[in-house]
Structures are given as structure tokens and as C-alpha cells.
């Protein structure tokens, strides 16, 4: 079973994969927009914490999405 951080990373990656046919840049934007619309503030805050955690080897698309989320925040 995934812990919450792993779950958030997994979910963001899964959303990205479903937008991926739009091309990487558009998919990153669409995923970030999705998180803005559907994730609660604590989940978003955790996403930004994950982004800042050097111990976490974040998949590149998810890093881009969380980066975009930081800009939106």
C-alpha cells in the first residue's frame, strides 16, 4: 500500500499520462489545472513539499506539474 506522498505522486503521474496525448507541455498544464480544481489545499501543500524534498526522486513530468502548481499557487 502506498503512503500518502507516494499516492499523490502516483495520482499526479496518472493524470499526466491521461493528458499525455496532448503533448508534454499541454499535458503538464492540464494536469496542474486539474490539481488546482480537484485537490484540497493540504494535498496541494504536500505536493509542494514533495517538490522541495531532495530525498524524493520525482518522475520528471510530475516535477513539472508540481512546479506549475507552485506558480498557480
Amino acid at each position, binding site marked *: *500500500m*502506498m503512503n*500518502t506522498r507516494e*499516492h499523490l505522486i502516483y*495520482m499526479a503521474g*496518472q*493524470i499526466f*499520462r*491521461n493528458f*499525455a*496525448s*496532448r503533448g508534454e507541455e499541454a499535458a503538464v498544464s492540464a494536469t496542474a489545472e*486539474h490539481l488546482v*480544481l*480537484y*485537490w*484540497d*489545499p*493540504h*494535498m496541494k501543500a504536500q505536493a509542494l513539499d514533495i517538490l522541495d524534498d531532495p530525498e524524493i526522486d520525482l518522475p520528471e513530468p510530475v516535477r513539472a506539474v508540481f512546479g506549475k502548481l507552485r506558480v498557480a499557487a
Partner: protein
Amino acid sequence: MTFTREKDFGTPAASGEAVSLTIDGQELTVPAGTSIMRAAAMVETDIPKLCATDSLESFGSCRLCLVEIEGRNGYPASCTTPVAPGMVVRTETDKLRKLRRGVMELYISDHPLDCLTCSANGDCELQDQAGAVGLRDVRFGYEGENHLEGCKDESNPYFTFDPAKCIVCSRCVRACDETQGTLALTVDGRGFASKIAASQDEDFLSSECVSCGACVQACPTSALIENTVIEKGTPDRAVVTTCAYCGVGCTFRAEMRGEELVRMVPWKDGKANHGHSCVKGRFAWGYARHNDRIVNPMVRGSVDEPWREVSWEEAIGHVAREFRRIQNAYGTRSIGGITSSRCTNEETFLVQKLVRQGFGNNNVDTCARVCHSPTGYGLKTTFGTSAGTQDFDSVQHADVILVIGANPTDGHPVFASHMKRRLRQGAKLIVIDPRRIDLVRSPHIEASHHLPLRPGTNVAMLTAMAHVIVTEGLVDEAYVHERCDRDAYAEWAEFVSDPSRSPEAIEELTGVPAQEVRAAARLYATGGNAAIYYGLGVTEHSQGSSTVMAIANLAMATGNVGKEGAGVNPLRGQNNVQGACDMGSFPHELSGYRHISDAETRALFEKDWGATLDPEPGLRIPNMLDAATDGTFKGIFIQGEDILQSDPNTRHVAAGLAAMECVVVQDLFLNETANYAHVFLPGSTFLEKDGTFTNAERRIQLVRKVMEPLNGYADWEVVQLVANAMGLGWGYTHPSQIMDEIARLTPTFAGVNYDALEQRGSVQWPMNEAAPDGTPMMHIDHFVRGKGMFVVTDYVPTDERTGPRFPLLLTTGRILSQYNVGAQTRRTANVDWHAEDRLEIHPHDAENRGVRDGDWVSLRSRAGETTLRAKITDRVAPGVVYTTFHHPDTQANVITTDFSDWATNCPEYKVTAVQVTPSNGPSDWQKSYRELAEASRRIETAEPAE
């Protein structure tokens, strides 16, 4: 309402040109095709009848309804003779009276003369008609050969068949054929030996009979009669209300004797069911007065303590104090609530209001999270509104019906009967389902195409069908050009046209021959009006939302939205899933599907409620559980949901609940979730309250109180008690006031109120200034969002994969006789049909594992393990196993994983990699859970007063 029978016009209504005639000197005009019997009934002339009833086609066997027609010889049966222009009919003459008495004499000479002790005394058409024809004696005597020694069939738990009282009018047989479409009954034998038989002359319980009750309702004597009438006597009043089982939303007459419910009889004027019912709504209401009902509030300090009964005041005060304490300690967003799709619109609206106004956050969710949340996302994205497009009656205009991921004969049986009627008339059927559901082949019905795809490949399959439609030039170009976003269409068409998305390219993936896919796609696109009906086999996948959008794409591409007989139609699981979603139960939306971030919408609510609303979306149910295990979510109010049994990955749900400091459960029974609760607030049944439910066709219908709540309060009153204990100052005195609030805050409900519902019987939203009569069909001239939006739906395989450890795919579903987690139906005689969850396994897979039919097997996934008995069947393909989730002893959701739909987090119940092995006992989880459940249900016995 006092007790009166619904008027029976004898034969169904017709709809031809106007025809004028004279009956007994009275001139009247009726539609061509109307029978003389019906025309007479329309002017209050009731011609005696026995074999005729207006829910069935005329039959002309009883010879009681004879009439005289000027210029015609003989005495034709009025039920089978249609009206004609200028026809002059006489219904009462000396000759007719003599003929009818003679016929009735024959019937009565072979009928028990026990009227005074008969269960149907006073509610028997035979008795009434004997009186109507003036029968005074029976010249033939009663000593001749007769059928009075026939043995009663009491096998069915809900009704009894007494052949001694049967007049072989065939109404039951025809009801089974025409109304239900099961064709389980027949007339066995010839002449005097004729008798009603179930299947191959079996008892009713063992036969193919599905206990819908249509035969009982049709019977004009007490040959088929409800056991409750035998036990309790005939009813003395009736109240029309709405069923609380599935999303079809059947309306019933709750027929009462004092405060006691005698029977539920489907209401002929019900717009969703047209007088039909299933075994659940018709008979399985005994749970309402079951001994397991908890009627007093209970509190306990921790979940290992026994429950302590307390006053309402103490319980409500405790809830309010605990929730405020938690918020003070952990923050505003540390608590939340779950609304119930089994409760009324008014109740769900109040729970989300309690969360938003009282808790000050948006941590509210509903069971639609685990069923139709992808429908909300998918249809809103493509069409602009989160609901199905048609009314149920639309299916009668369909030429092609595509059923995907739904099993209507089990899950939505009354609608299935309407669908089967259309199929018997010649509509073509395509079934896309891993399992061979009954619709694939049943009496008088055979699907043109069954595409038994591998679980998890819906998107690939639908995209392949789109590939065929686009590349073979079957797109309705004019429709797409006028009604849809052209750029989006062009992008989608290019995407689906790629050879990698052809049926041939995905054949290995789906396991379905490409030729069959091509043929099904061609039929859907070219067969006339084409309607899609879908269920949880679409939504409960990691690509549930994509599948809904892929369905919408197909419908738009073929011009099948906005007209009769077509559309995209989600079959909703629970009675008020649609309503719960409409009412703002999702954490990101206010009522009417408006995002919480929209300042203008928020301002509307803030002004009305006098509170500032949180502009950020709240937590979904799985996220609440994650947050609970993280220690940031500490309290929850759960109304009428059993998330421990119904939600995926039971261990995760249990861990989340166990981590909270205040779990409040409001329910009829101490459900599985209550094992982890600190406060239990007793709930009320649908028979004990007023309100409204909204069914799968957006139809809002009244729920009327027929008896007082055992616990003293309707559920909306309990929510109000909690709200007021938290200082919200609500003052509703009737649910109609809540609906008025919903209407003033929700544009699609602006015209809805209880007066309109009383007058019209039901309305379909949107109902407002633009649609003053409601909206049976949506998107007629344009889509709600403007132009229909094609969405590219790339196939992204689930991460749940089979392998050496877990080589089989488990998919789950429901069965006709049980409902959801079984809390209601397990407490009725429906367990006679389904006493336990069984694992369906293909003979090949069973053979490989040494499993025989009925053996106990261990079902194991990476999430958990349970044990249940095997049922060997080729309904499932090799490599696929299937079970239901109705019984807590099995807890099928111990097996399901936390994979979910990418857009909505709707769990992927339909795809779990598993292994099946022979077993000889319950799993460790089952053993420990059984102990926990037993301990958790202890109720402290109060000390007797001195």
C-alpha cells in the same frame, strides 16, 4: 389517501386518430385502436371482465365482457374489439346479462366457496364480477370434476400460488411475458387439465421466476397473493411514494393497514416504472421493521468499549462538542462528512450545508465517488452537464441498443423489462461486457453482438469502434458540423483513425475478434436510433472518465444525442445517486455542479446562509482516509453509507477510520463502518419521512411518509439537530422548505417545488424559466455547453497487472436479489436466492486449480485475502473471475486495490489481479474481523431503575 383501487380500463391506451361512437346511448370520441372495453371505461361504464387488465394486451378468453354492436352478428368480446366510426354499442341487455351469468356460473362451479375466510375477501375481482353480473346460484352444483384439491405452492417467500383459486385467465402468464419479459410461466395441459405452471412445472422458487410480482398484481383472484396479505389482511389506506432501492426510481402505492405496511404495489401512473416492479421494491421492505434496527442514539469513548444508549440531547451535544474540539485542536479542515445516495435530496443538501456552513470547509463527498463520479466528469466535459440525456421511455424508440458495463436485468430490472420489450419488437442489441450477462441470450432476446472484452480495455474497444465509424465514412457529418466543436472533432477523428487504434490492432489486447468489433460499430452507426446504456463496468476503472468521454464521442459522431431513441444513459446504482450529486455532495462543487472556486456562485450561498465559504475544494473520500492515517483528518459525519464494506481496499478504510477521534455514523443498522464509530445516530427509512429522490433520468419524485419513524426523527431533522447544536440556527419545519432553498440557489432546480411535484407527479430537471415543464430529453437543439466537445481518449492501461502471483482478473458486480452492501436486502427473505457471495470461475481455470463447484476457495490479491465458495460457470471467460459484494462475511473489498480513475478517484473495482486456490477455512482477516465486529456491536445493558 384512503384505500381505493387504481382504475383499470381493461386494455392499454391507444394513440390513433379520433374516432366517435356511441356506447349505451352516450356519444364519445376516443383514439382509433381503443378497445370498446376501454372506451366504455373512459365514460365510467365498466363492462364485466376477468381476463382483461389495462397493463396487458387484450386476450379475449374469459367471455365475460361480451357486448352487442348494432349491425354485427353475435356478441363480440369488448376487450378484443376495437372501436370504429359510428359504432353503436350496448353493454347491458337481458341477453348479455344471461350470457355473462352463465359464464360466471361455470367459473364459480369450480371455485372454493370460502369468500369470508379468503385472504382476498373484498379485494377480489372474481368476487366483484360475480356481484356485477348478478350471480345468485350455480345450476351445475359443486360436485362435478374440479380443481379444488390442487396443492398450494408456498415455496416463494413472498407470495403463494393456490391453484384451487385459479381461473386460468392467463393474466399471470401474460404479465410474465409482456410486463416482465422473463416468460417463466405457462399454461400447462389442454382443456380441463389446463393449469398454470412455472418453468417446467417446477415450484416458483426453483423456477426461472424472478419474483417481480407482476403475476401477483395481475391475478384477478387470490390464486397468486402476497403472503403479507394472507398474514395481515387487506389494506385500508394507500400512499404513493418512491422506492429506495436502485436508480430506476419506481413509484409504489404503499398499502397500509393502520400503521402497518401490508404491501407495496407498483403505481400504474409512475413515469419511471409504469406499474412494474422488481423483487426488491415490491417485496424486500421487511428491513424497515427488522429487529436489528437501532432506534436509540448511542455513544462510546473508544471503539473497544460497548455502546451506551443515551438521549438524543446527549448524543447531539456530544457530536457538536467533539467536532468543535477537534477543529480547535487540528484546524478547520480536520473534519468532514459523507452524504448518502439512499437519503433524500433534502437530506443530502443539508449534510453538505452542515459541512460548508457549519464545519467551514468543503470536506464533503458521497458514495457517487465510488460509482458514477466519472459520469459527472465525462458528461460535463463533453456535453456540459453531469447527467444522462434521455428519459427511460426513450428506449421504446431505439433501433439499436448498446449496453456496456451494465447488467440491467440484475441491477435495474424494471428498466430492463422495458428494454426487453423493445428488443422483442426487433431493436438490435450490442453487449460489451466481460461476462455473458442475461441480456446476451434470454427468452426471445439475443444480442446481435457480444463483445466479451478483457477487463480494463473499455477505452481501447470504444476507440476501435470509433476508428471503424470514422475510417469507413459512417460519421454523421452534418450533425457534427452543426452541433459540435469542429477543431476538437478534427483532432479526435485524426486520433482514432490511426491504424494502431483499429479493431485488428487491439484484438490481442481486448481478446475480441476484430470482425465482431467492426460489425458492432457498423450496426451502432447505421442501424437507426442508437442508444447507449452503461453502468459501473464503465466507471469503476482507472480510465472510467475516459470511457464515459469515449462513449460520448461515439454518440456525437453518429448524431445520436438530442433525439428520441438515442443518447447516453448512465444507469445509476442507488436510488438517489443522481440527486446526491445534484445537491452539491462533491467536495469541489455546489449544487447544480458549480465549482466552489466560482466567486459569484459562492456569494449566492454566502448571502443565503450568512457564512463565508471556503473557496478551495475539499477532500474526496479516499483522500480523507489518507489524511486520517497521516493524522490531519480527525472527525467525520457519515450519513447512510457503509464505507467499510462498500469502498475499496478495506484495510485502508479501516486504518483511516481507526485513526480518527470522532466517527459519527447515522444509519438504520449497526453497519460495518459503525464498528469504528464513536457515536451512532439512528436513521429513518424511506417509509418514515417526506422528501424527494432523483432517479437516473433526472426525474424528481416525492417520497411520502407512510409511518412514524421508529427513532422519532427523520434524517433531515437529525442533521438539523447537529447543525443547531453547532450554532447554525436552522429552522426548517418541513422538507419542502429545504427544496425551496435548493430551488432559489440552483438554476437547474429554479422551478421545482412540492406543489409542482404534487400536481405533476414528477418533473425532470432542468426545470426553470427556460424549461417550465422540465426536461425529459437534453441537448435537443444544442448542447448545454454550446458545442459538443470531442475528447481524445488515449488508452492508458491500468497499473493493476496480472502475473505469476496473481494470474486472474477479478471483476465485481451485483445480483438481482441483493442490493449494494446488502444492509437492507440481507434483512429480508431475499437471502433465499442469494445467501452468500460466490466466486464465478471458468471451468478451465477451476480444473487447473482442482476446484469443484461449491468448494471453498481462497481469493487473494496484493491488497488482501478472503474465502468464499466457487461457482463454476462459463459466463466468465478463462482468466476472469467474478463476485458480488453483498455480504460482510466475504468482504470482497478486502481484495480490491486503491487504484482509481485518473480524473475522479472512482475506485477500480472492476480490475483486480488475483489468485484462486482451494481453501478449507476463512482467511486471517475474516477471522479477526469477525471478532472485531462481534465485540464492536456490544450494547451496554442499562441498569434497571430502582
